[in-house]
C-alpha cells in the first residue's frame, strides 16, 4: 500500500503523536493546544480526518499511529495549496488588489534593482 501524503500542518501534528503514542485524545488536544496553538475542535477534526486516511487509529479515545515517521518522510509532504481555495475568495476584490501575475521579465527587473542596490552599498 502506498503511504498517503500529508500536509505540513498534519506532519507537525504527527510529530507530537509519534513522540507520545499511544496517547489519550484528551491529552493530545492539550499538547496540540500548547505546541501548535490549535483549538480542541481543530485537533478532533484532524484526528478524524487522518484516521479516515489510514494514518492513525482512534480506539476508545486512545490514539496511535498506523504509519511511521520514516514512511511519511519518504512520501514527501504535500505542502501545496489546494487549488479550489483560490476560486472561493472574493475575486472581484482580488482582481484589483492582487498583482497581475508578474512576468518573468518584471521579476528579473526588480531582482536586478535589488542586486544593484546591494552592490552599490558594498562598494
Amino acid at each position: 500500500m502506498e503511504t498517503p501524503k500529508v500536509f505540513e500542518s498534519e506532519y507537525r501534528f504527527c510529530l507530537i503523536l509519534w513522540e507520545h503514542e499511544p496517547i489519550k485524545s484528551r491529552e493530545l488536544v492539550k499538547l496540540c493546544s500548547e505546541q501548535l496553538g490549535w483549538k480542541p475542535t481543530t485537533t478532533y477534526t484532524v484526528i478524524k480526518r487522518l484516521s479516515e486516511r489510514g494514518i492513525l487509529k482512534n480506539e476508545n479515545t486512545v490514539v496511535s499511529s498506523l504509519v511511521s515517521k520514516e514512511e511519511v518522510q519518504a512520501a514527501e509532504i504535500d505542502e501545496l495549496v489546494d487549488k479550489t481555495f483560490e476560486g472561493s475568495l472574493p475575486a472581484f476584490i482580488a482582481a484589483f488588489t492582487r498583482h497581475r501575475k508578474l512576468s518573468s521579465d518584471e521579476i528579473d527587473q526588480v531582482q536586478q534593482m535589488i542586486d544593484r542596490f546591494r552592490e552599490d552599498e558594498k562598494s
Partner: protein
Amino acid sequence: MTEGFIRCVNLSICASWLVLVVLLFRLLFKKAPKWSRVLLWGLVGVRLVCPFTIESVLSLVPSAETISYDMMMATEPALDTGISAVDQLVNPMIIASYSPNPANSANPLQILFSVLSVVWIVGIGLLILYSVVSYGWLKYRIRTAIRLRDNIYQSEFVSVPFVLGIIRPKIYLPFLMHESLQESVIIHEQAHICRKDYWWKLLGFLILAVYWFNPLLWIAYLMFCQDIELACDEKAIRGMNAVQRADYSQALLSCTVHPHVVSPCPLAFGEVGIKQRVRAVLHYKQPAFWMVITALVICGVVGIAFLTSRPADAALSPDGTEWLNKSNGQECIAEILETLTLHQDNTVSFSVPEHIPVSKDGKTRLTISLSATYSGEVTTVQNILGAESGWKGGENYRSTLEPAEGELINVWLRVAFYTDTWSGTVVEYLSGYNELTPPFVYDTPAGYTEPSVVVNQEGREASVLYTMRDGYITQLSFTLPEGVTITEYENAEPYQLFLLKDDEIIGGISLHKFGTTASEELAYVDTGADKLPMQIFSDVALPNHAGYEDYQVRKYSDTGATATAKYFWQDLSQMDKYGSAAAIPSQQVNCILTYDWDVMPYFVEMIFTEEAVSETEVASLAGDIQLTAAG
C-alpha cells in the same frame, strides 16, 4: 429608504471631488511621507461617514445637494451640480425624459429612485454577505495553522503572508520560508498590526459596501489599500540599514512571485505594486521636516475645503432683503392683496411693500394682474395690468376704471411669483388673488385672509377647517366610510381635497360660491324641497354640460340643507371624438351637497365614485355631516 439613498448619492458626489483631489495630491507629491496619503483617504472616509457638514465660505465643494429629495416631485426635475455648464447640459435631458406626466399618478423619477434604492440595498447586502462568507471560509481553511511564536502562525494554505482578525489579529505565514525573508515579512506584518491597518481596511471596505455604486470610490479604495502598504513599509524600514532594506525588498519580491496565491479576502493583506514598493524601500530617505509640515498643512487645507459645504442659504441677499422662500413669498402676496382699494373717484389702487423677497437664483419674479369687469349688454373686462413684472418694491399703483358701458361687477387682483424653467416655460411658484364684488366698500382697503385648509382625521371621524380668503372660517365634520382617508394635494386650490382608499383617489371635497349672496333672493329658497335651488348651486349646475340630478334632501334647517344627488357631466375634451357637445356621453357619480347661508356663502360638494362607496354609505354620511361656523 429612498431618502437615505439620495443622501448617500449626494455624499458620494461630494466625496468624489475630494477623491480627485487626493489622487492629484498623490501625483504631485510623490515624495511626501506616505502616511499623509493615508490621512487624506481618512478625510474621504470622514466625508462619507459623517452626514453633516460644517458650512464654510472656504468650501470648494460645488454642491452639497446635487439631487434634492423634492426633485422626485418637481414638475421639471433638475440637478444642482453647482457647475452651471454641467447643469445646462444635463438638465434639459433629464426634463425631457423624466418630467412627470400629469395623467399618471406616479412620477417617473419617483419610480426610478425607489427601484434604484432597492437595488442599492440588495447590493450592500450581497457585498457584506460575500465578504462575511469568504472571511469565514478563509478562517476555516487556516484553522490548522500552527503557531510559530506569539501571534504568528504558519499554514500550508497560505502563500502570501497576511494579517487576519479584528480584536486579536494574527499573522499568517506559509511554511518553508527562508529565515531572512520570514523576519522581514514579520516586521512588515507587525507594522500593520501596530498601525491598526486591519481596522482601517475593514472600515474602508464597509464604507465601500455602502457606496458601491460609485466607481470612483472603488478606485479610491484600491489606492487606499496600496497607500496603506506603502505607509506600512515606511514604518517597517524606519531605522533599518541598507542591507536590511535589501533583505526586506527581497522578501517583498519573493512573496509576490510565489506560484500559488491565496487571494486575500477584503480583510486580509495582500501585496500590491511590487516594483513601486521595492523602489520606495530601496530609496527611502527620512522625509525632510519641511516636507512633513507641508504635508500636514495640505491635509488641513484639503480638509477645510472639502469637508465643509458652502453656506446653504444665507438668509439675506447682498442688499439686505430676504431671499425668497414659500413663507415670505406668501406674506408678500398677502400684503399686496390686502391693500386693494376701490376709491370714490372711480379709481382702484394697491401698494407693494418696501421689500420684495428676491429669489436667490434670480429666476423667480413677482407678477401682478389687475382687471375690472362690467355688466352691460355683454360683459366687458378692462385689463388694467396683465401679469406685469419688474416691481421694485414700495410702489403705490393707482389706475382709473373706464367702463365701456354698464356697472362695475368685480375687481380682480392676482399676485404671483413665477419661475423661469430650463425648458423656457414658466411655472407658478406661489400665487394668491383678491376679488371685490358688490356691494362695494369705498376708500377702505379690502383686507385679505390667506386661504387654508386644515384636515383632522382620527379613525373614521374627520373634520376640515376652512379659512376662506374673504375671512369666513368654517368647520366641516363627518364620519368617513371605512378605509377612506382625506388628503390635500399641494398644487390644488386650497378648497380642494381628495378622498383616498387603498391609495386610489375615490372622490373629493370641494367648495363653490353660492349663485347669489343677496338675502332677499336666498329668502325664496325652500331648504326642505327635493328641488335643486339654483340660487345656491348655479355656479356648478347652470352650464349645459354638467349639473346635479336626483336631488334628495336628507336634512335641513331654515338657512341650509344637506342633500344627496348625482353629479353628471360631459367630458368636453372629447368633442373631437363625438362631433358635437350633445353627442358626448354623460358620466355620473354620487355626491353630497351641503350649504348654510348662516355659516358661509359657499356650498360643499363631496363626490364619490360608485364602485368605491355604496349609495347607502353615501346616504348615511349625508345624515351625519355638520357645517358650523368657527374661529
